[in-house]
């Protein structure tokens, strides 16, 4: 049983997807998605335990031995991502019970759950696969279903947002495919471990450089790295609340994970950071993202767009950590990845709650509601402080680790960018606080009641973010073992 877990993890959600379409009932489809999410979370938890105890697990799909068959690898570097993705799926599943009813009609709801299952399966597959072409396939599965989910958003603006995401996402995926093709042309293999071994021999081949550049740029589009971020605000801002909660915690994070995986265990840190200037470009892009996106977030008038821009800034932090190429940097990036997934999911969930209760997430509509919706806004403020990085929230742990890593590497300008970005983050969170508590209410309409499922998810996520801040042992140990597995090739 345990030997088959790596593939079960992916197959459960993929197999549940058609079930959702066939069942046609909202409640049944919801139940199926919940089961799929719980199933993959259980698999992820068992796998994480196994990997921690016995080292990496390898699984040959269909019994075809690598490098010819497809191989799934579960090791220290992807267990945190598996936990984050499947945990976010469970949160999204519970959350959708209250949220989907208000945003999507009964006819389309089963489709949404189908896409959620497909996205979940795609992201998990992308995380565990040890084969680059298979990675492309999973990337496309998750991306295509994501475009469809964004298009299900309640406003008409969701359609152009989904279309833009589709175009640019496809361009990115194509770049990834071109890169994989070039690497295949150089080495004649698609298995990651095998690629790594052969690439080491094919050093200083120009086709190899081109392969790396195409793959990185393609993944940077998927990860919304500044200045290739432009699809993200629309996609997160217009998607149904359940979807933005799920995507905010997962999709860009998985792309960043794949970036790490390919950098350290396929192309090799020597090539990427030594001969190629990827590290410097990443630090530049990360620093720029942190400052520019936070500054834009300060001026947003729509809560979901504000959060989306803040996500772009936080992706900048994670990218900067990875681009250092040091153990401390990668470990900090993972820590921030985990923490930010929790924090941003809780914020998007809270924004969805506000949307349900008020019918709008325009900041002007929130004026003076802090007193009438104290619990919802308290959650936003606590999670928001996490974004700023105020101790003792989870955000502080990640930022502290990142700041130490940057200092260790002597990257002062990036550190300054990070600190400035934190100040700006205080600015946009402060705007929410100021609007909610210190402005006169715009209308006297009483906010409608909050669905218990949504409130519960918001508070559980907020609680997790606080717990991770107070006692960072779990995420920190996950992050450290991930960095160790990546840098020492422990896959």
């Amino acid at each position, binding site marked *: 049983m345990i030997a088959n877990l790596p593939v079960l993890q992916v197959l459960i959600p993929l197999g549940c997807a058609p079930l959702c379409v066939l069942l046609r009932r909202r409640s049944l489809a919801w139940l199926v998605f919940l089961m799929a999410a719980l199933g993959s979370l259980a698999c992820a938890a068992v796998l994480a335990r196994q990997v921690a105890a016995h080292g990496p697990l390898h699984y040959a799909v269909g019994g075809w031995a690598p490098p010819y068959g497809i191989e799934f690898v579960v090791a220290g570097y992807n267990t945190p991502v598996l936990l984050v993705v499947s945990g976010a799926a469970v949160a999204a599943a519970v959350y959708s019970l209250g949220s989907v009813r208000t945003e999507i009609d009964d006819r389309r709801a089963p489709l949404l759950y189908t896409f959620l299952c497909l996205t979940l399966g795609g992201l998990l597959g992308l995380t565990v696969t040890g084969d680059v072409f298979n990675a492309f396939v999973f990337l496309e599965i998750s991306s295509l279903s994501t475009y469809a989910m964004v298009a299900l958003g309640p406003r008409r603006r969701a359609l152009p947002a989904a279309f833009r995401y589709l175009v*640019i996402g496809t*361009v990115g995926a194509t770049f990834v495919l071109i890169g994989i093709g070039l690497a295949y042309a150089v080495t004649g293999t698609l298995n990651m471990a095998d690629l790594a071994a052969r690439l080491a021999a094919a050093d200083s081949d120009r086709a190899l450089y081109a392969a790396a550049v195409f793959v990185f740029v393609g993944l940077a*589009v998927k990860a919304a790295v500044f200045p290739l971020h432009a699809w993200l605000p629309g996609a997160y801002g217009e998607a149904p609340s359940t979807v933005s909660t799920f995507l905010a915690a997962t999709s860009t994070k998985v792309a960043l994970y794949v970036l790490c995986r390919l950098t350290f265990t396929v192309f090799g840190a020597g090539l990427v950071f030594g001969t190629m200037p*990827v590290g410097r470009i990443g630090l530049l892009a990360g620093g720029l993202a942190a400052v520019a996106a936070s500054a834009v977030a300060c001026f947003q008038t729509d809560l979901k767009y504000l959060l989306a821009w803040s996500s772009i800034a936080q992706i900048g932090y994670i990218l900067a950590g990875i681009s250092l190429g040091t153990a401390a940097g990668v470990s900090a990036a993972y820590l921030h990845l985990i923490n930010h997934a929790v924090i941003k999911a809780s914020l998007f969930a809270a924004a969805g709650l506000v949307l349900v209760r008020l019918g709008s997430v325009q900041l002007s509509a929130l004026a003076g509601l802090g007193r009438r919706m104290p619990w919802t806004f308290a959650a936003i403020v606590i999670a928001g402080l996490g974004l700023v990085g105020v101790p003792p929230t989870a955000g502080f742990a990640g930022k502290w680790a990142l700041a*130490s890593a940057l200092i260790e590497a002597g990257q002062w300008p990036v550190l300054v960018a990070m600190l400035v970005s934190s100040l700006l983050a205080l600015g946009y969170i402060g705007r929410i606080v100021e609007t909610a508590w210190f402005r006169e209410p715009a209308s006297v309409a009483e906010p409608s009641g909050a669905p218990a499922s949504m409130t519960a998810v918001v508070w559980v996520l907020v609680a997790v973010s606080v717990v991770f801040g107070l006692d960072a042992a779990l995420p920190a140990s996950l992050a450290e073992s991930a960095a160790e597995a990546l840098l020492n090739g422990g896959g």
Partner: protein
Amino acid sequence: MTANPALLLILGAAGVPLLRGLPRHALMAAVPVAGLVLLWALPEGTAPGLQFLGLELMPVRVDALSRVFATGFLIAALLTMVYAMHLRDTLQQAMTLVYAAAAVGGTLAGDLVTLFVFWELAGLSSAFLIWAGRNERSHRAATRYLAVQLLSGLLMLAGIVLRVQSGAGLEFGHLGLDAPGGALILAAIGIKCAFPLLHSWLTDTYPEATIVGAVALSAFTTKFAVYTLARGFAGTEMLVWVGLVMAVFPIFYAVIENDLRRVLAYSMINQLGFMVVGVGIGGALGINGASAHAVADMVFKGLLFMSVGAVMLRTGTANGSDLGGLYKSMPQTAALCMVGAASISAFPLFSGFATKSLIMEAVGQEHLTVAWLLLLFASAGVFHHAGIKIPYFAFFAHDRGYRVAEAPLNMRAAMVMAAVVCVAIGVAPSLLYDMLPYAVDYAPYTTAHVINQLQLLLLAALAFTVLVRTGLYPPELRSVNIDADYVYRRALPQGWRALSRAADAGRARIGPVLRRRGGELWEIATGPLRPGSRVSRPWSTHLMVWWTALVLGAMLLLAFL
């Protein structure tokens, strides 16, 4: 972490919004008292640490220095909470408790990370006390205040990180200016401690706080900074001169200021100057003096802010030119205000006399004649602007016809408690002396000292009386300056008036233009960031693809070069 008075206060703060009426009042008073009991029940020494991100933290360290400051903060918290009982606004009450908790927690912090956490918490929580004015003016002031507090926090964080990186460890003991990160940490403290040129946030924003907020603000932030300074930078000679500038320059501003709460803010900088001088001298006497004066200042400055706040509550203004004659309708507040005034002016039998003289003695023992004379001048200055000006213009002077009720009962109770503390320390200095970090071998009540001080004060009072009687002062510039002679006293107001007329005219001409230009510049600078601008509106697909192609091309080029 388990037995920390700061946590107790924060827990209490969480309970405040949940209760109403008498139980809430009881809770508000009980929490600081319980904090005091807990503080004195804690054994001296460092409580077992806890691990956080691989750092060894020591959140509770009790020694004489931290205990005397924490005691002061808790007493101030009690006074402020009693003073705040009449409010319906639970936000202010809860935030005041959190703010006090930050000061207490920071004082007990045994390591720099804990210190930083409470340093930031103090800044954040106190901003709410300004915000709580709930009007445009207080919003702006709070934002300015918060920005400065965060800047201070960032500097401190940067200093701590540098220090940790250099291997000096996290322990919060003597830091010193020359140690790695020392200058940054000192700059961070300098902001909160209102060093010259870094002080303007204090006089700018304290008078914009709510009535209760100003009382709380007067007690915690700056004295917390003094504690940090005493712990980390005792005996840094530069601080003596910094402190002297702080003690002297606000006098001139306070004399010409009309808003009584701003006068108090200036006089706070002046008092802080004394403490900073004490820290700069260091040694047993200097640190004792700084600690004792800080504790006394928390109470008497609080008392003064409370009385001016009570006046403000009843009359709606704190402008000296609009007030006067209130002793008829608010006799008790007037009497209590004068106790505070006597304390800050260091009248014998009041707290300032017992504590300030420790600092004077420390300066004297070091034979810093210039410094001693400047402090003497500053003492006289305090008497003018805080000791006489505040009670005189609020309660006496010209009767402006206010016939208002006496301050609410809880306010009077708080003021009485503060006054009792002031007199107790003044009458029996050993109450405070026994708590100080070093053994005190000093008797304030010697004949020479008492007579010296009385001479200083009485001559100052005489000067004031003569000047007011002879009507030499224009009403909006009522002030006395004992070491300025007759001609100078006339020249100063006239010169000042000419200058301010010119400045007003200039401001009227340039101000709007400058503001408009500034506004336009801000619009242009932030234009690209606003929704609907080129950056922030949804990008067209071809723009996104162009960017992708551009990045790809650039990376390929760089990779092949």
